[in-house]
C-alpha cells in the first residue's frame, strides 16, 4: 500500500487525478484509519493548523511550500477541502493519500462541505461527474467524509511563539527585553516578520500591549523586529523539527489545550467530552450538536443567536470564555469564514478563525493564513491535559453574569505564529482540452 500510495501522491501532486479503482482503494484504506480515530483527535504540538481549502489545489501546494511538507511538518486541516474550486478532487485525494501514508503527521477533520447534500449544491458533485463521467468517485469520497473526526485537541503547546528556523538568527539577536514576551507574530510567505504582538502583563496597572498592525502581506514599515535584510530568496522557510527546537526553546510555561473545529461551538455541547459521545459516522445532520460544530460562527453578540446560514448558531464572547474556562482550553481554533487577512482573532484572543484559501473563488482578493503552535519544552512536551493548577492564567474580559469583579481568568493563550500567503502564481498551468458540453448544447 505504501508504494501504491507514494505513486498516487506523486501523481496527485502533479495535479493529475488517479484512476477510479485507485480512488476506491484509497478511500477504503482511509476509512480503516479514520474509523480508529475518536471524534476529537488528540494532536501534540508542534502543529500547523489550516483552514478552508475549497479545491484550490495550487494554493494548497503554496501552503505546503510556505508551511513545510508532510511529514516534516505536522498538519491539522480543519475541513472544507472540497466545493467551489476547480480541483476539489485532487486536493482532497492528495490530503487523503498523505493521511494514509503518514497518519500521525496529518489530521483531517470534517467541514460542513464534507457532506453529500452540500457537495451536490456547491460543485464537488459536478466536478466528479465531469472528471470521471460517473458519480462513483463522488460516492467513495462521501463515504470517507462520514468517518472524518469532528474536532481535534492540540496538547502541549507553548505560550512562546514557536521557533522557526527561518528567523532563528533574527530571534536570537533581537530577543525582546526581559520583561517582554512575544505572544504572536505574523510572517509572510518568505518568512519575513510583518508584525508581532507582545503579551500583556497583569502586574498592577502596567497593562502593556503592543501591537503592530499589519494586515497585508507586504512588510509593515513599523515592525518591531526588522526582518533579515539579506534573506536569500532561494531559501524556503524550514520547519521547526524536534531537533532544531531543543536548541532554541528555553523551558516555557504551559498553556491549556486548543480545540480545533470547523465551525464553532454548540449550545448542546458544554464539554469537550460531550463531543466524544456523538455518533459521527453519518451524513452531517441538519441540526444537533454535530451540525453545530461544523456550521456555527462566532459573532459580536451575547449568548447564542440564529445563524443566517440556516444551520448552526452564532455565539458570543461570553460563550467562548465560559467554554474555554470550563474545559481548560486556552483557545478555540476554527475555520469556516472568509477573513480578508487570512486569520482573525476575536474575543480577547479566545478564538481564532484561520482561512487558507487565498483569493477565494478567484475574486475575493483575500490572503490566506496558517497557524503554527510550538511545543512546550518544559515538560518533555507530553502534558496530558492542562488543568487548573498548571499553566499561567490571564484575565479574559469581563462577564456580567458572574457578578462581582466579573473577570474570568483563563489559561494563557498559546504562542501563535501566523504565516500569510497569497494565491499561487498561475504560470505553469496548461490549458486543458475542452470537454464535450452537456445535453443543453447537443
Amino acid at each position, binding site marked *: 500500500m505504501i508504494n501504491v500510495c507514494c505513486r498516487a501522491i506523486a501523481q496527485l501532486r502533479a495535479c493529475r487525478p488517479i484512476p477510479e479503482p485507485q480512488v476506491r482503494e484509497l478511500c477504503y484504506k482511509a476509512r480503516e484509519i479514520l474509523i480508529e480515530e475518536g471524534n476529537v483527535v488528540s494532536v501534540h504540538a508542534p502543529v500547523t493548523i489550516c483552514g478552508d481549502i475549497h*479545491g484550490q489545489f495550487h494554493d494548497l501546494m503554496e501552503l505546503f511550500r510556505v508551511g513545510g511538507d508532510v511529514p516534516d511538518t505536522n498538519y491539522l486541516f480543519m475541513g472544507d477541502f472540497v*466545493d*467551489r*474550486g*476547480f480541483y476539489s478532487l485532487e486536493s482532497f485525494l492528495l490530503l487523503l493519500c498523505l493521511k494514509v501514508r503518514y497518519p500521525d503527521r496529518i489530521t483531517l477533520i470534517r467541514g460542513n*462541505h464534507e457532506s*453529500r*447534500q*452540500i457537495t*451536490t*449544491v*456547491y*460543485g464537488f458533485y*459536478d*466536478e466528479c*461527474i*465531469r472528471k470521471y463521467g460517473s*458519480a462513483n468517485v463522488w*460516492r467513495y469520497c*462521501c463515504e470517507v467524509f*462520514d468517518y472524518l473526526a469532528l474536532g481535534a485537541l492540540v496538547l502541549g503547546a507553548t505560550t512562546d511563539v514557536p521557533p522557526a528556523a527561518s528567523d532563528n538568527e533574527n530571534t536570537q539577536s533581537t530577543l525582546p527585553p526581559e520583561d517582554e514576551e512575544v505572544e504572536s507574530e505574523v510572517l509572510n510567505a518568505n518568512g519575513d516578520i510583518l508584525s508581532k504582538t507582545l503579551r500583556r502583563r497583569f502586574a498592577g496597572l502596567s497593562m502593556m500591549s503592543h501591537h503592530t498592525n499589519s494586515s497585508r502581506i507586504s512588510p509593515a514599515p513599523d515592525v518591531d523586529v526588522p526582518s533579515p535584510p539579506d534573506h536569500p530568496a532561494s531559501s524556503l522557510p524550514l520547519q521547526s523539527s524536534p531537533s532544531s527546537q531543543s536548541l532554541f526553546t528555553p523551558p516555557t510555561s504551559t498553556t491549556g489545550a486548543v480545540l480545533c473545529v470547523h465551525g464553532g461551538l454548540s*449550545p*448542546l*455541547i*458544554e464539554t469537550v467530552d460531550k463531543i466524544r459521545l456523538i455518533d459521527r*459516522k*453519518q*451524513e452531517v445532520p*441538519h*441540526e*444537533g450538536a454535530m451540525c453545530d460544530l461544523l456550521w456555527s460562527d462566532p459573532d459580536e453578540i*451575547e*449568548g*447564542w443567536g*440564529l445563524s*443566517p*446560514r*440556516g*444551520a448552526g*448558531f452564532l455565539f458570543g464572547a461570553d460563550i467562548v470564555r465560559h467554554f474555554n474556562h470550563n474545559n481548560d482550553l486556552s483557545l478555540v481554533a476554527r475555520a469556516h*469564514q*472568509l477573513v*480578508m487577512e487570512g486569520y482573525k482573532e476575536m474575543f480577547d484572543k479566545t478564538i481564532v478563525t484561520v482561512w487558507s484559501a487565498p*483569493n477565494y*473563488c*478567484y*475574486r*475575493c482578493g483575500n490572503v490566506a493564513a496558517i497557524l503554527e503552535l510550538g511545543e512546550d519544552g518544559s515538560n518533555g512536551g507530553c502534558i496530558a491535559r492542562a488543568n487548573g493548577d498548571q499553566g499561567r492564567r490571564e484575565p479574559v474580559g469581563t462577564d456580567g453574569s458572574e457578578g462581582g469583579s466579573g473577570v474570568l481568568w483563563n489559561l494563557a493563550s498559546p504562542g501563535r505564529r501566523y504565516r500569510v500567503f497569497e*494565491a499561487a502564481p*498561475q504560470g505553469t*498551468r496548461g490549458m486543458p482540452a*475542452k*470537454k*464535450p*458540453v*452537456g*445535453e*443543453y*448544447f*447537443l
Partner: protein
Amino acid sequence: MPGFPTLQRIGDVKTHRFEEPVKKIYDGSDVTFFLTSLAYRDIMTFMLQLNRSVVPRKQDVDGTARVVTWPLKSKDVAYSDSVERLRALLTRLSKLVDDVPLDTGPRRFGNVSFRKWHQLVEDQRDNLLNECLPEWLAPAYPELASYLLGSFGSAQRLDYGTGHELSFLAFLGGLWKLGFFPEADAGVEERGIVLGVFEQYLSLIRKLIVTYTLEPAGSHGVWGLDDNSFLPYVFGAAQLAPAITESDDTPTEGSLPGAPEPSWVSKSNLVEKEKDKNMYFSAIAFIYDIKKGPFWEHSPVLYDISGINGGWGKINKGMIKMFNAEVLSKFPVVQHFLFGSLFRWEKDAEARPPPPTTHATSQPLRTPTAASPSTTRPGEAPWAGTPSQPPLGFVNGVTQAPWASRGPAPPPPRSGYAAAQRRTLPPLTENWSKHEQNRPTERK
C-alpha cells in the same frame, strides 16, 4: 409576425385590477406548478421575443438583399421615448451609487453600504417612477415596483444572482403588457429594450457588484455558468447567429459570417475587442475584470461551451434550454419570484406538463442511508415527503444551508444548553435511486 408569439398586451389598463405581487413558491412542488403557470408562459414568451429581436436580419433595401446586425450601440436601433425613459431611470439609479460612500468599518466581504443604496432606491421609489413613467401607469406602480426593487440584489444578503436578473426581465415584461412600449414592427421596440435598457441594466449591476463587492447568490463555484448573470449569454449569442428573414425560424445553428469565434472567450485581448459590440463578450469581459486566474479554471462551463462547433445559433439554443433548466426550474432561484396580476400564479390551460427531470434535480437531495451500508443504522428515519426549499447562497463568502427554512425562529435560550430550542427542518424527498436516475439530465 405570424407564428412568432409575442407577449399579449392588456386590453384596458384603466379597468385592470392590479395586485401587490406575492411569493408563491415555497417548495419543490410549487416549482413544478410554476412551470405550467401563466407567469411562466409569459416570462418565456417575452424572453424568446427579446432574443429573436437581436438576431441579425436579411432585409431587402431597394431591391438588394442586405444583412443588418444589431451590435451594442448600433446606430440602426432608434430608441423610443419609452426606452429613453427607462434609460434615464437606470442613469438615476447609477448616480445614486456615487452618492453612497463605501462603509470603511470592519467587514468580511460584501459592503454594508449597499443596504444604504438599496434603501435610497426604496425611499425614492415613487419619485423615480413618477419621473420616468407616464402618469397613466400610476395604478401599476406598486406592482411594477416590486419587480424593479427585486432586480438589484439582496440588501440583506449582499448578493446578486440570476433571480434578481429574472425580476428585471419581469419588470420589463410587465411594462410591455401594460402597453408602455409603443406598437411597432416586429422586433423594433424589443431591440431597444435589449440593447438600450437591458445592457444598461447590466452596466448598473456590474457597478453595484464591483462597488459593494456583492457576492454570487447561490453558487456552484466554478461549476456554474456565471456567478451572477445569465441573459447576456442568451442575447449575446443571438446577436451573432446567422441572419434570418422575419418569417424564418430563430436559428439554432450556424453563425453570422465574420462573427467572432466562440473560442475567443478564453483570450482576454480578443474579448476586449468584442465587448463593446456584443453582450456575450461584454459579460465575459466582466468575468475577466473581477476574476484572477486561468479562464478555463474559473469558468470551465463557459470554456467548454467555447468549444462548440455548431456556431452561435447552436449556443443560443443551448443557452435558452439552460436558462429554462438552471434558472426557471431551480427552486433556489425562482423561490423569490413574485406573482400578481401581470405574472399570474394560475395554470396555463395549454401548458404541457414539464418533463419530470428538469425540476426534480434542482431540489436539495438527501442521500438515504441505504446508499452507503456503513451508515445504515436500525431505526434511522427514511427521508420522505416534500422538501421545503432553501435559500441557497454565498453570502459574504459563506455557505448557506440548502435546506434552511426562511422563517425566523426564536434563538435558543441563552443559558439553557440542553434546553436550546431547535428549529424544525422539513423532511426531504428524494430517495437515492430516484436521484441517480434524475441526475444525469442535469449534467452540463
